[in-house]
């Protein structure tokens, strides 16, 4: 570190330039990570908070649109309950709708239809849980940010069904970028087939209306043979995590962001590697002199790596600091953005490690420099 630190301070303008590039990459990393965590939350936080381990969809349904396309008969719920290792199974309905509150607030909702006595029933921290009343609805806390309150009446577009907000769930429950609203399963089934309150009152809905759900929500032990259960029930189950990919746009969003992040890491490693390669080449005569003086190769390698480590850690630290500051500002806007300590730490560590790998390539040149070139007469 003797030489490394003195060089850092002597060539500070050059290192500051390099550090600025690394810091900018770190800022971008933090913002991208915030955006991707935000998008994931926006897309599937409602699913993440569900107490199920798997969803059993209709057999053969497209995996990227299972929540909107799957239709399963309620008999499948019984079939799943019979399976060894399955602790519980409940019908589950999923439907995206538009609604307007009596206060005039327009809101998009993901209607989750559940039986109010099943394990899937929501547990609001404010107000009442879903009771027997067919018009009750429990909404995500994020809906209250839009101006929905307990006691509001929500009128669903097209069908005209009127729901009363009875409870609010703590935290963000969203699905496909809209707020989740839990309704009783029967109400969900009526909305699903497009039955207006008048149609329901007339009582002439087709019999299958009350037999169809989106999926079976399953709570199973690790030991449960899900494949066998699928065969018995005629369904296709996806683990909760896998089912995220079935929510609208989730796969496209996350893979695009992942691709950008991978590119940024590669750019970071290459830029740092290129900088230290040029820096090493510029100093090759000095390094030859050091080697002629008998400097151990290990000493020179450690010194170069320590130098890049100091630069990378400082620059990444500054970048993450600025990124988190900027992220806090963005987080207060409606943009889907959430700073996650784990994700940011991972990004920072990866940036430093990959930068170090880049500079290690440059450091290998140090080992190859011939001390003979230090003598004036040679070359």
């Amino acid at each position, binding site marked *: 570190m*003797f*030489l490394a630190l*003195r*060089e850092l*301070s*002597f*060539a500070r303008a050059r290192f500051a330039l390099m550090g600025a590039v690394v810091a900018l990459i770190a800022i971008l990393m933090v913002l991208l990570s915030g955006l991707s965590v935000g998008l994931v939350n926006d897309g599937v936080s409602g699913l993440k908070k569900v107490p199920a381990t798997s969803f059993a969809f209709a057999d053969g349904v497209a995996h990227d649109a299972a929540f909107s396309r799957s239709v399963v008969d309620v008999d499948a719920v019984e079939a799943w309950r019979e399976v060894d290792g399955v602790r519980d199974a409940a019908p589950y309905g999923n439907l995206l709708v538009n609604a307007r509150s009596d206060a005039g607030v327009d809101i998009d909702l993901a209607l989750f239809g559940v039986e109010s006595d099943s394990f899937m029933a929501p547990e609001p921290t404010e107000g009442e849980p879903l009771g027997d009343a067919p018009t009750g609805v429990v909404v995500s806390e994020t809906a209250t940010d839009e101006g929905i309150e307990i006691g509001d009446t929500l009128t669903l577009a097209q069908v005209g069904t009127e729901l009363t907000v009875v409870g609010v769930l703590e935290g963000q429950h969203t699905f496909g970028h809209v707020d989740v609203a839990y309704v009783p399963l029967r109400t969900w089934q009526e909305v699903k087939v497009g039955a207006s309150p008048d149609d329901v009152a007339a009582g002439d809905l087709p019999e299958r209306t009350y037999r169809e759900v989106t999926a079976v929500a399953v709570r199973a032990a690790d030991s449960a043979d899900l494949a066998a259960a699928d065969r018995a029930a005629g369904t296709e189950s996806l683990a909760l995590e896998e089912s995220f990919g079935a929510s609208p746009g989730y796969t496209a969003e996350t893979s695009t962001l992942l691709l950008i992040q991978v590119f940024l890491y590669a750019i970071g490693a290459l830029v740092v590697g290129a900088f230290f390669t040029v820096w090493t080449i510029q100093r090759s*005569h*000095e390094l030859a*002199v*050091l*080697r*002629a*003086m*008998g*400097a*151990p*190769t290990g*000493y020179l390698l450690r010194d170069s790596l320590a130098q890049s480590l100091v630069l990378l850690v400082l620059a990444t630290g500054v970048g993450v600091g600025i990124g988190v500051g900027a992220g806090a500002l963005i987080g207060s806007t409606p943009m889907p953005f959430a700073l996650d300590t784990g994700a940011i730490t991972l990004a920072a560590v990866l940036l430093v490690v990959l930068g170090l790998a880049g500079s290690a390539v440059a450091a290998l040149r140090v080992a190859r420099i011939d*001390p*003979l070139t*230090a*003598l*004036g*007469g*040679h070359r």
Partner: protein
Amino acid sequence: MSSSAPETTTGEAGLLLEGVTLQLGDGDDTVRALDDVSLRVEPGELVAVVGPSGSGKSSLLAVAGGLTVPTSGTVRVGGHDLVEANRRTRARLRRELIGFVFQSGNLLPALTAADQLRLPTRFARRSSSASERPERDPHALLAEVGMDHKADRRPHQLSGGERQRIGIARALATHPRLLLVDEPTAALDRQRSQEVVALLVRETHEHKVATVMVTHDHDVLHHCDRVCEMVDGRLTPASPATPGRA
């Protein structure tokens, strides 16, 4: 003769070359840069090597300093064999036994004069046998070469002659047995050249180090204890008094 003789044998030459030949280049295009060169330099003796360009002077320093292994012959520094040693060992022997003074000082731009002297002692500190010898105080050494008042200057704030003085002090910082000096006055005017060579001679005598100095500058030879001439890779003694005092 055993190759790993203990380092402090009295009567051991600072540098001993016997029948050293160095072939350079490959295939048909080989050059005998050194042709059966023998040279013995005692501790406290400064030997100047003169000769036309391309005669093999730098090659002599490279072989004596363990930067190149000769094609044949013996190279011993303070009793240590440089020919048999591997790369690692040669690097260790260089930092423990040999000091280099390069053409224009070749100081590190990032370091102050005092730090230039501290750096080689940091390499040497890693070696076991170096710990027996006390480190030299950088400021005392700088004072010896008349540069103590500029200990905090970096190379770009120093003149060529000042850089060369610091280069000499740096080479002496690890108590070397052998000092190898490559054209120390090439970038200096007449007055500075005289001063620098006089300094080298003084340090050589004072610290009992064996010094080999390659030079083109015939005006400085009168300072030297002995002068050798290199022609086409062959080293022959020249009389010390005649060339310089002319």
